[in-house]
């Protein structure tokens, strides 16, 4: 593995701020990013990345490779949770397996954004429409997860939420909505919109990402420390999943003939797990599953793993096979 990639990933301000947050939690500093600042930052990042992706889409127009990649993304988003469920059902029980499947079948926007930032730093080009792939991959896992839970008999006593609410939660939840909506606005307004919004969506973007990662460092370290329910099987899976899903992602990217940048982004989408939209939906739809398991797995293990080790690793692998 090329150490210069590792260094340039680890020594980038966003990752360093993530470490700083984790360190603060570990030293039990009273540092806190007060609510609702994290929500605002998350909203901002989705808006900015969506908008910029939309503008790129406006520039590039519809390409064949884009359509094929989006198709592949959709396929992965459906197949991955099913695979995960099959693997985990015996070990975690139906409800928890379904929730974990949904979590890992979906994507983490911040991991994606950190990857985009890393590519920018290394001056490796990537396509704007990868944002569309991310948007496509957010929701299906939620639906699949719930279908699996119900089909395989997670006890539904006290189940109060119908499919209408569930689909709304899956496709119209705040994260997906802002991401997709901003992308559409980017497509509509194109370069002129970009000029108007650039200082907001691009100028301060990296700084806002740093602030958000500072918070994620804090929150994920605290959540890890507070999680009583995590056992070895969960931790093991939370490390294994990004590696296995990442390998699948690399393979598909290779088959699709993506460029290096897009390949990394596709891999990161496969390898990452949702810790915002999906947990909220799972909590409503599969109340028997324990959030004390699937939230810290995604937030406190897989997310740091991806940001710290995963990104440089995936990129090194891609560099190796693509050259």
């Amino acid at each position, binding site marked *: 593995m090329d150490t210069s990639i590792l260094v340039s990933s680890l020594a980038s301000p966003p990752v360093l701020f993530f470490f700083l947050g984790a360190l603060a939690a570990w030293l039990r500093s009273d540092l806190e990013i007060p609510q609702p600042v994290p929500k605002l930052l998350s909203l901002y990042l989705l808006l900015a990345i969506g908008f910029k992706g939309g503008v790129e889409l406006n520039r590039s127009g519809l390409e064949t490779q884009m359509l094929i990649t989006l198709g592949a993304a959709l396929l992965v988003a459906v197949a991955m949770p099913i695979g995960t469920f099959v693997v985990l059902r015996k070990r975690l029980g139906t409800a928890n397996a379904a929730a974990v499947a949904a979590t890992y079948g979906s994507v983490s926007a911040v991991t994606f954004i950190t990857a985009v930032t890393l590519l920018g730093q290394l001056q490796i080009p990537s396509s704007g429409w990868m944002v569309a792939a991310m948007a496509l991959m957010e929701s299906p896992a939620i639906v699949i997860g719930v279908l699996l839970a119900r089909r395989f008999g997670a006890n539904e006593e006290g189940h109060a939420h119908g499919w209408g609410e569930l689909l709304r939660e899956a496709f119209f939840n705040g994260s997906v909505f802002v991401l997709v909506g901003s992308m559409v606005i980017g497509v509509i307004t194109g370069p002129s919109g970009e000029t108007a919004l650039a200082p907001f969506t691009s100028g301060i973007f990296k700084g806002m990402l740093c602030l958000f990662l500072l918070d994620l460092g804090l929150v994920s370290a605290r959540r890890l420390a507070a999680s*009583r329910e995590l056992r070895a099987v969960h931790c093991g899976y939370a490390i294994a999943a990004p590696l296995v899903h990442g390998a699948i992602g690399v393979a598909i990217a290779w088959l699709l003939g993506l460029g290096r940048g897009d390949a990394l982004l596709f891999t990161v989408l496969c390898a990452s797990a949702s810790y915002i939209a999906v947990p909220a939906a799972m909590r409503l739809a599969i109340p028997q599953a324990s959030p004390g398991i699937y939230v810290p797995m995604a937030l406190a293990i897989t997310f740091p793993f991806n940001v710290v080790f995963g990104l440089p690793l995936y990129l090194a692998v891609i560099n190796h096979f693509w050259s």
Partner: protein
Amino acid sequence: MQAIKRIEIITDALETREVCRVLDSLGVNGYSVVRDVTGRGERGVQSGDELTDVFKNSLVLTACPPERLSDIVDAIRPILKRRGGICLVSDAQWVMH
């Protein structure tokens, strides 16, 4: 002043809307909601430090005539069963205005 029952329900913030819906459907006179309640219970610490509302509670308070009490309690109980939390009932006087 008039004797009423003071019912307070603390449960997962995700169920706030459901609790209010239930109270609305029972035709209670009114209720009040305090969002952003943290706490500890059987299901562990709800520290509210999350990006989602997943680890947060809310408190719903309603004052009702004593004869409505059992209806309300019966309607709330399944939510508590499903999601945890507590429901406390106490006697109070309502200041008429």
